[in-house]
Each structure stands twice: as C-alpha cells, then as structure tokens.
C-alpha cells in the first residue's frame, strides 16, 4: 500500500504535523492509502498518456530550436479547504482592485505620489512605466484585466503573495487541462465530495472581455494575439482562443486602417476586431511606438487603442505595477486607495530605499534573500544563508551604492505536497498561481495552477527547469 508522509520541519498541504490527513484531504489520503504502488503508477502512466495524446505541451528551447514537450503533471492533487480559499479569494480581489486604481492614478493625476505615499523617484526609474499611456482611459478604469499572483505558504502555515504577474501571466490553460485529467484519474473522489469546478474560467474571461469592448458593443469580435507557434505558451493561446470562440491572430494578421480601427486579414477581406487579448509584451505591441524592430506587433495599434477603437487586455502600461519595488508597496497601496487592511500578506519585504529598512537588511543579510528591483530571471539575486562572507559584503556595497534598486525578504520554506517520484510518494515544494479577472466585475479561479519542484529539495517550480504541476482542489468543508 502507498505510504504517504511529510517532512517534519515543513508545512505539508495534505498532512498535519502528526501525519494524519488535514480534514479537506481526508478522502484523498484514504484513497491513496488504499491503492497499491503499482495501481498508483498505472494511474500516473494513464495521465501521462492522456497528456501526450491530447497534445498538451509547452515549448522549451535547446540549441536554438523550440522543442514541444509533454506537460509534466503529477496526479496527486493539492487540496485547499473552501473556507480558507474564500479568504484568499477576497484578498486577491481586494489586491487587484487597489492595484488597478494605482495604475490608473499613475497615468493620470498621480495622487499617490503627490500625497507622499509612493516615492516619485521610484516612478521615474520604473522600466515599465510607459509615458505613451499617460492620459489613456481604459473602460472601467481597469488596466490589469487578467493577472496571476503567485502564492506561497511558509512553514508556519501563513499564505503570502510572492509576486503579482500583471503583464501576460500564463498557465491558466493547464489549470483546466489538469482538472480534465485528474477527473479521469480520480473519478470516484469527485463523486464522493464537493470539489469546486474550474471550467467556468473561460466563460468568465469571455464575459470580462465583452465588458471592455469599445462603444458598448454587445457582441464584439475578440482576438487573442499570440507571438506565434514558437512561443512557449502557444498551446495556451490556442487553447484559450478555442474556448473563448475568439480568433487566434498573430501581429501580421492584423492591420490598423486610416479610420484607426483594427482589422484582421481574412479570406473574404478585412474584418473589424473590437477586443484584443494580447499575449505579447508591451515592448512588441506597436513598432510605431515601442520597439521599431518588432515584427510581432501591429503598427498603429497604440493609436487605435488611445482613440478608443479597440480594447487591449491587459492594457499597455499595466506592467508598471508588476515589479519588485511596487510589490513592496502594495500593502500601502491597498490602504491608500481602499482604506482597508490587506487580507493576504505580502512576504515581508525590506525596501533599501528607506534608511531604517536598509540598515536592517545590512545587519541581517545572511538571513535574507536580496533581490534587485528591476531585474528578472534571478539575475543579481543573493540567498543569504548560501553565500560566503565576501559575497555578502559585495552585495552590501551594491546596496549602499544604489539603495533604491534593492529589496530583501526572509528566506521562506515553501510548503510541500506528497508527490509521486520514481514510484515512491515523497514531499515536494509547491507554489500556487490563481488567476484574477478584472473588468466590470471581478473573478478568481477556484484554486489555480499548483507548480511543484520535482527535484528533491529544489524550490524551483518552473516547467523549463524540472518543475511540474498538480491539480488544485478546493474542497467544500462546511
């Protein structure tokens, strides 16, 4: 029989410290315990076969060539009690409401800067602030229509927001596909308990996109703009277009005519597009305004957007709120615009911009993760307890030279979920990316994408670096 265990000093999502199942995970753990190893392995193989024939893939790059890989999936789901999830949902809704007000403010009066809550010089140095967007007024004042916030749980069980992805967050298609597979693998469990469905996401996405159409058009033509088949998330772009009943377009399929409207090239000639769900970065959107060498974008697209002839989700410029410095201010942003306390915490973040916080970072640098504010992909990142003294000193010098560019956070121990590894069930670290839709109303996915670091001890959950995924079950517990 399968033996399920956790690691003593870490928080496990399915098991309490004494090794008994957490209440919401009881049915699942009982089921796992009743299965022989070989049966469990059989179900895993069945799932992998499904993934292969359904063509659920992501693209990795090797030797300059894109290779289509099967999506790595572990059949043991992560379980969250619905009572806890409702608090997370409320917290994410609150967070995105405030963040959208913040973005809208930055591109208009900048009250938050005038009131001294957000430092002016941070804005001046922001790479993602787009002067071209100043004065633009997207429908409902919403800029970040589709966002994905990464949540992690520390050893004491507290759930934190680790970062907000407000530009082109990906992964939601895998939430839906993972569910389709786990329903086949654990059909009996879905009958025994109430697991919240995830399938309504694409309907909600459709409703949201319709709600932002220009001139109140009630049946707009919606297009999903993809960089093309070589993008690692192409599978998702295609999947979403399909579920939305939208047209999947590449930049070259679109043209902005003299009337400032956007059209697509069809076999019957040009046809108007009203809403674009874009999956390419700001910098590539419009070669007339941003990078002139972009072949992914559409010349004139910004002109059309500013004239209100087309809606773009996420709005150009929304990325201004998607960097590590702004992240550190989100709790203040929530208090400033909503007059409320944040419902989900940020990971405590020390902003070297402020002398007292900077001093704390310097004094405790060996207990912290130090991150440069405007770099991504881990560049310049220092993990204090794994660094030598001279590396620590070198980083202190960097911080003192340009304090504004640095933030630091305590080193978290990500929670674990039992995971099938070479026939054994072992605890592996996970995070969680729920997706939040903001338009006329807002919506949060029931759960989200649980990413798992398949290598023992690893905290890296990216699929390109040995990470996998799990289905996420929100189980009704009341």
């Amino acid at each position, binding site marked *: 029989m399968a033996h399920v265990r956790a690691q003593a000093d870490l928080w496990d999502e399915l098991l309490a410290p004494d090794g008994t199942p957490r209440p919401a995970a009881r049915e699942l753990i009982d089921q796992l315990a009743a299965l022989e190893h070989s049966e469990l392995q059989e179900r895993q193989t069945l799932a992998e076969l499904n993934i292969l024939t*359904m*063509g659920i893939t992501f693209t990795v790059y090797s030797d300059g060539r894109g290779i289509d890989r099967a999506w790595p999936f572990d059949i043991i789901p992560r379980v969250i009690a619905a009572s806890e999830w409702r608090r997370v949902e409320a917290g994410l809704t609150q967070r995105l409401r405030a963040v959208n007000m913040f973005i809208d403010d930055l591109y208009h009066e900048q009250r938050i800067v005038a009131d001294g809550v957000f430092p002016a010089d941070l804005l001046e140095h922001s790479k993602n602030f787009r002067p071209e967007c100043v004065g633009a007024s997207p429908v409902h004042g919403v800029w970040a229509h589709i966002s994905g916030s990464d949540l992690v749980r520390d050893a004491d069980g507290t759930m934190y927001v680790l970062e907000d992805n407000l530009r082109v967050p990906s992964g939601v298609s895998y939430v839906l596909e993972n569910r389709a597979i786990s329903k086949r693998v654990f059909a009996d469990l879905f009958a025994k308990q109430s697991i919240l469905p995830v399938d309504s996401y694409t309907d909600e996405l459709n409703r949201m996109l319709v709600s932002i159409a220009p001139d109140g058009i009630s049946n707009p033509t919606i297009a999903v703009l993809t960089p093309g088949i070589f993008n690692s998330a192409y599978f998702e772009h295609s999947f979403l*277009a399909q579920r939305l009943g*939208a047209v*999947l377009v590449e930049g070259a399929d679109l043209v902005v005519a003299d009337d400032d409207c956007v059209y697509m090239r*069809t*076999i019957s*000639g040009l046809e108007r597009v009203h809403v674009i769900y874009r999956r390419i970065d700001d910098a590539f959107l419009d070669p007339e305004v941003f990078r002139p060498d972009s072949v992914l974008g559409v010349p004139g697209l910004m002109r059309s957007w500013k004239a209100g002839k087309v809606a773009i989700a996420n709005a150009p410029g929304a990325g201004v709120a998607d960097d590590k410095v702004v992240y550190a201010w989100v709790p203040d942003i929530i208090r400033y615009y909503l007059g409320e306390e944040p419902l989900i915490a940020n990971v405590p973040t020390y902003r070297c911009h402020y002398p007292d916080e900077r001093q704390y970072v310097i004094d405790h640098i060996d207990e912290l993760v130090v991150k440069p504010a405007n770099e991504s992909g881990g560049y310049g990142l220092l993990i204090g307890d794994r660094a030598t003294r001279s590396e620590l000193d070198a980083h202190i010098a960097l911080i003192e030279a340009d304090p504004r560019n640095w933030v630091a956070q305590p080193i978290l121990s990500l929670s674990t979920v039992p995971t099938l590894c070479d026939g054994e069930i072992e605890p592996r670290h996970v995070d969680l990316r729920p997706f939040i839709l903001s338009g006329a109303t807002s919506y949060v996915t029931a759960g989200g994408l649980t990413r798992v670091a398949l290598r023992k001890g690893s905290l890296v959950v990216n699929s390109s670096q040995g990470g996998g995924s799990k289905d996420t079950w929100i189980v009704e517990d009341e």
Partner: protein
Amino acid sequence: MLLSRVADNLYWGARYLERAEDTARLVRSYTELVIDLPTSALSTWEPLLAVAGSSDAFQQQHADAPVGELPIVRHLVADQHHPGSITSSVAFARENLRTTREIIPREAWQTVNDLSLYVGSNAASGVERRSRARFLGHLIGECQQLDGVLTTVMNRDDAYELWRLGQSIERADMTTRVVGVRAAALLAAEQQVGADGSMTDIHDDVQWMGLLRSVSALQMYQRATRGPIDGRAAVRFLLLDPMFPRSVASCATRIREALGRLPRSKRTLPVVDELERVLQASAAVGEDGASLDRAMEDVQVALAAVNDVVHEAFVRSSV
C-alpha cells in the same frame, strides 16, 4: 470568418496528410504487386519513385548507391531529409495544423497528433518488408479516422471547404501521376508486345490490377465494369468515373463544390472549368502511352493553376 494565414495552413495540412496517405497506398500496392509477380517480370522499384515524383530527389541523395527496394522504400517512407516522404509529410501536416487547433475539432487534432507520434517512432518499421504492410495499414487507418472525424463533427464552414479543397487537389494530383507514369508505361509495353509479335508475358492483367490497387480502385473498378481488366477502361475509370471518389473527375467536382462555397468564387471557378476541359481532352488521346503521359502533364498543369488561384484568392488578396 477565417484568417488568410489559417486558411493557408488548413489547405496545406490537408494536402500533406493526403500525400502521406496516398504514398502509403502506393507503396503498399506496389509491394503486393512485386510479391505477386515472378522475379523476372518486374525487377525494378524505380517506377515507384517516378509516381511519387521523387526520382530527382532520390538520385541527388543516392548518386552512388544501388537502386534497390529498401533504399527506395526508405526514401519514400522514412527519410526525414526527403520532403516528399511519409515522415516529412506527416511532420509538415502537424506543423501546419498546430496553428489551426482552435479551428479543427479537438478529436481531429488528437488524431493528427497520434499519427505524428506513431510515425515518429515507427517509420523505420515501414521499410522492412515483413512489417511494412502493418505500418502502412495503420497509417492509412489513422488518416481515414481523421477524415471520419471531420466528416461527422466539423461545421460545414470555410475551414471545412478549404480542407476538402486541399485534399481533393492532392488526391487528383496523385491519381494523375499514377496514370501518367504507370498506365502510360504499361500501354507502351503492350504496344511493344503487339508490334514485334513476341510472346513475352508481361503479366499485364496483374500489372493493371496493381495499378488500380495503388489508388484503392480495384474493387470498385470490378464492381463498376463486371468484366476482365482492360487497360483502357481502367484509365477511363481512374480519370473520368463520376462514381469513384478518387477519380480525377470526382476530385474536380469536389474542388468545384468547395470553391463555389468559399468567397471570391467568380474569380476562382474559371480555373476549374479549365481543369475539367483539359481532363475531358485527355480522355480522347487514345491508346498511345506517350500521349497519355503528355495529357497527364496537362492535367497537372491545370491542377497547379487551381493551387495558384487558391493562394491568390485567399492568402495574397488580403495582404
């Protein structure tokens, strides 16, 4: 509403898959034919290259190698560097159809994906004689399954018509080449026999059966004619029979239907008129192998004109 780019991908996806299936039928029937005949009567596999339109490509890659069964079959079935091989055709089809996943039914994409996985890992087994029939049969079966999915669950919209269009043009092209290369050669050989009065047995009935089988036409031919196999009747059947779905005339009818339902038909239909005119003219060339070969070249030119007008009307015109 159909994007020009996607229309192009659907059209070519259909062509490549049809090409893979037709090549499989061709190789399978030729193998059966060779097994049927005494070794003296048919010692060469080169006609297979000629029908597949791959003679030049093969010679470039195999300048010094012996021209035997295995190199030729490998070239047509499993050679990744030969763009006309089954392996390449399936890979191209998948690449084209990957960008049409939101258009074609999900089951259809799964079939294409399955097929591509199958060919990717089993193509080598299609070379050896003992496993060849199984591999080719499986591949033809998957193509048929795909056709079944599209026929039974896909909306009869522009995307569907483009699919049928690509499929019919490719199918007509293959039937034309079978007639142009092999029927013409058989007719020429028969004339030769008649002229010098020799009694060399060229097993022409077996050869004609093999030819019909290469486009899966044998059984239907026999049902339609109810008599012994006659070369001229077989050619007429393959070119003009309105009941047989792989005849060039049937393909032309489906090309006409598809273009008639797609936009810009005023511009596109005249090339189908021309195709049908050339096809009718080819039936009148009579019994001489060389002129049949030339007539098939004319039909191919007319098919190429259809291909060009499709590109011009649906892809280039919106640029």
